[in-house]
């Protein structure tokens, strides 16, 4: 052919069309089944367990739970990977914004299978009691403890059905079981313990002696080795009832169960749970904060100006002074400046949080039960003409939480938010994504940074002694009636007529907590909590307002 480029064009067009039209290869026969909630029912407004079971191993497999965007809402994708084995437990929040969720089984970029779930298909807005190896007669009695006001749902479960994450117990009011022996996985034990410290109720009968008992796995409860008589143990806000006799031998009447369970009507009861303690608060309107009052990362701006100015000056000198045909000076100069651009950029970018406002709140569960937390990440409105204020980028930012969780958040221009877990158990999740506010919620283990007094929620005097703690800047105390505060350099707390100024921003949430748990005393502190290291890109970890419910006595 005289004109080879014509052949080249034709061949490239054909190859391109072929490449674009090749359907993606699908893994044959891969499918999954799922179950949501305990016993097939979902508790609205609460986190419910979602269990996905895959029929075969998938290379590079992962599960994505997608909340499709409707109207102005954004698509929220929560991914967990890698998918080791066949099963994955995942908490999902069932509320009016989350009626439909889509589950996808992915391998690389390929969708192997997907299903749409309607969470409102079977709902029960009331107390849920999980019953493990409990006779049907007892289950019936349990379901009537709040009659005639309201029914209680009793869901018979197997030990394998029990959740592995604290959020799986968000809707569970009590766990009644015949001692199954030490059959629970460590993650299940940990989740149940956290739930207990937050106000859960565990009732165990037919206890086996010594190491053959389920109690052998609950070392943190510090129970006596042999239980010869009925025993009640308080664990933080929760309670454990232990009976040596089997359920069949017990002749408990409904009134007796009422005394044991002490269930309040559903709408009045509250535990230290993710849904109760961190309700979705309406985001403050974006107009409430005029641009001039937004934080301005002056050090970052100064760094940019300096670097730009020096670079422009030197580049101009090198261009004007270089020999007529020689461009090697220019290239050499650019390569030298390039080597210092990265460290300068890293230094400069550490001074700000990419135009976001981060609000971290944490509640330290009693008796080392864990740190329950929620974060609101507000992306500033993007406006190209508003160059003076601190703005976020339209492509959002990468948020990291510890080593295992990360995701990309985007402002209103993009309509997708992705949150990823490197661990199989999803301990932190997106709860809500308004156009420009992302809410995350989760639980983390208390680390060594919490002193014993903090981890065990001792009485007030212990708290004031820890004033010198390196990560707490301010401390305030609500004794159930009055506010107290320690001012700088003061050793003793002084009564404070109203909520301290540094807590004003969180006033709405604090008032909800005080209202919800009346009579409860709280300590409020602000600082960096190493366990909850939430970072936006390379910024320093965001501060946390953490509250500690104090135990009486």
């Amino acid at each position: 052919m005289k004109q080879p480029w014509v052949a080249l064009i034709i061949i490239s067009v054909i190859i391109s069309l072929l490449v674009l039209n090749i359907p993606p290869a699908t893994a044959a026969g891969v499918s999954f089944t799922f179950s949501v909630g305990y016993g097939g029912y979902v508790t609205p407004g609460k986190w419910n367990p979602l269990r996905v079971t895959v029929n075969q191993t998938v290379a590079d497999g992962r599960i994505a739970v997608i909340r499709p965007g409707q109207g102005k809402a954004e698509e929220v994708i929560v991914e967990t990977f890698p998918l080791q084995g066949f099963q994955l437990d995942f908490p999902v929040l069932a509320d009016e914004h989350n009626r439909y969720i889509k589950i996808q089984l992915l391998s690389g970029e390929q969708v192997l299978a997907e299903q749409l779930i309607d969470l409102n298909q079977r709902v029960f807005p009331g107390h849920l009691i999980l019953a493990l190896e409990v006779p049907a007669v007892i289950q019936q009695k349990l379901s009537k403890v709040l009659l005639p006001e309201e029914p209680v749902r009793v869901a018979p479960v197997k030990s394998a059905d029990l959740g592995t994450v604290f959020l799986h117990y968000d809707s569970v009011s009590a766990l009644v079981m015949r001692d199954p022996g030490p059959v629970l996985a460590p993650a299940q034990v940990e989740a149940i313990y956290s739930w207990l410290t937050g106000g859960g109720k565990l009732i165990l009968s037919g206890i086996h002696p010594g190491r053959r008992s389920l109690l052998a796995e609950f070392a943190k409860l510090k129970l006596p080795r042999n239980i010869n008589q009925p025993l009640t143990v308080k664990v933080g806000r929760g309670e454990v009832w232990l009976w040596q006799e089997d359920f069949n031998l017990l002749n408990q009447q409904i009134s007796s169960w009422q005394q044991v369970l002490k269930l309040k009507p559903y709408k009045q009861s509250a535990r230290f749970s993710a849904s109760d303690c961190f309700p979705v608060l309406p985001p403050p309107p974006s107009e409430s904060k005029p641009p001039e009052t937004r934080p301005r990362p002056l050090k970052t701006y100064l760094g940019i100006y300096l670097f730009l100015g020096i670079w422009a000056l030197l580049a101009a000198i090198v261009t004007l002074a270089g020999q007529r045909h020689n461009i090697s000076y220019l290239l050499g100069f650019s390569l030298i400046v390039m080597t210092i651009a990265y460290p300068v950029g890293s230094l400069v970018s550490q001074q700000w949080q990419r135009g976001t406002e981060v609000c971290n709140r944490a509640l330290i569960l009693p008796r080392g039960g864990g740190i329950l937390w929620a974060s609101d990440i507000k992306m500033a409105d993007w406006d190209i003409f508003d160059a003076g204020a601190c703005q976020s980028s339209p492509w959002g930012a990468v948020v990291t939480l510890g080593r295992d969780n990360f995701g990309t958040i985007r402002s209103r221009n993009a309509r997708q938010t992705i949150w990823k877990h490197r661990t199989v158990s999803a301990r932190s999740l997106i709860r809500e994504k308004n156009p420009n506010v992302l809410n995350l919620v989760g639980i983390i283990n208390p680390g060594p940074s919490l002193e014993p007094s903090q981890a065990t929620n001792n009485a007030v005097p212990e708290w004031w002694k820890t004033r010198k703690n390196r990560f707490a800047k301010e401390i305030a105390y609500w004794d159930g009636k009055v506010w107290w505060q320690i001012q700088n350099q003061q050793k003793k707390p002084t009564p404070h007529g109203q909520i301290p100024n540094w807590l004003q921003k969180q006033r709405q949430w604090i008032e909800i907590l005080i209202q919800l748990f009346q009579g409860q005393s709280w300590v409020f502190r602000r600082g960096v909590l190493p366990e909850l290291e939430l970072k936006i890109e390379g910024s320093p970890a965001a501060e946390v307002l953490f509250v500690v419910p104090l135990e009486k006595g």
Partner: protein
Amino acid sequence: MFAVCIAEIYNWAANFRKRTVLTLVLVWMVLGIISKLRPEVCLEALQAVLLWIGLLSGKQSWSEITLAGWVQKARLTYLEVVCGKISATLVVGLIHAVVSLPILILMQIVWGLPWSNLFAILGLTLLGMLVVTLSALFGYSLVRSENEILLHFFLCSALVITGLVPPFRIINPFWQGWRIMMGSLNLPLVILVNVLLLLLLVVLEIQFLKQEVLQGNES
């Protein structure tokens, strides 16, 4: 081909280097300071500067010998001459990208634009620059020198139309740059379409060049 390429780069370095590099530095400095190096402002400005350089190259602003002249004097094939020209334009564009790289690195770190997106925008802009060069090459060979304003008007209109009309947005570098920044782009498809457009323009330019050389020989 290499002779054309080297001669073009040599001529640019000798005659136009100061003008284009200083323009680039000035644009970076002014817009960088105003927008605090916001990528959506600065990258689009960089794209504009590179396209302008592509236009200058297409206009043969710094060429001492025109493409038709290369064919006639050096006995090179049409394809070699056109390839030499676009290679030289690509190298000149790359030199400007390298000069900008320190600022691009700083911008990327401060604003968190993914590296892959940054390099995709650069690559696509260089491709767009070649498209503009080839468009300008046969555009300038079509119109006479007194009608340059008309040609500039057509080129600007082409940019506006490809930005406004959805099916043509795939060849608009500014639009595609924005889409890459937002992370919502089928990049292989865009590259494929732009490469095909480039090949089409190469074919057209060769045809125009043939006519130009034939007319030159007849006259």
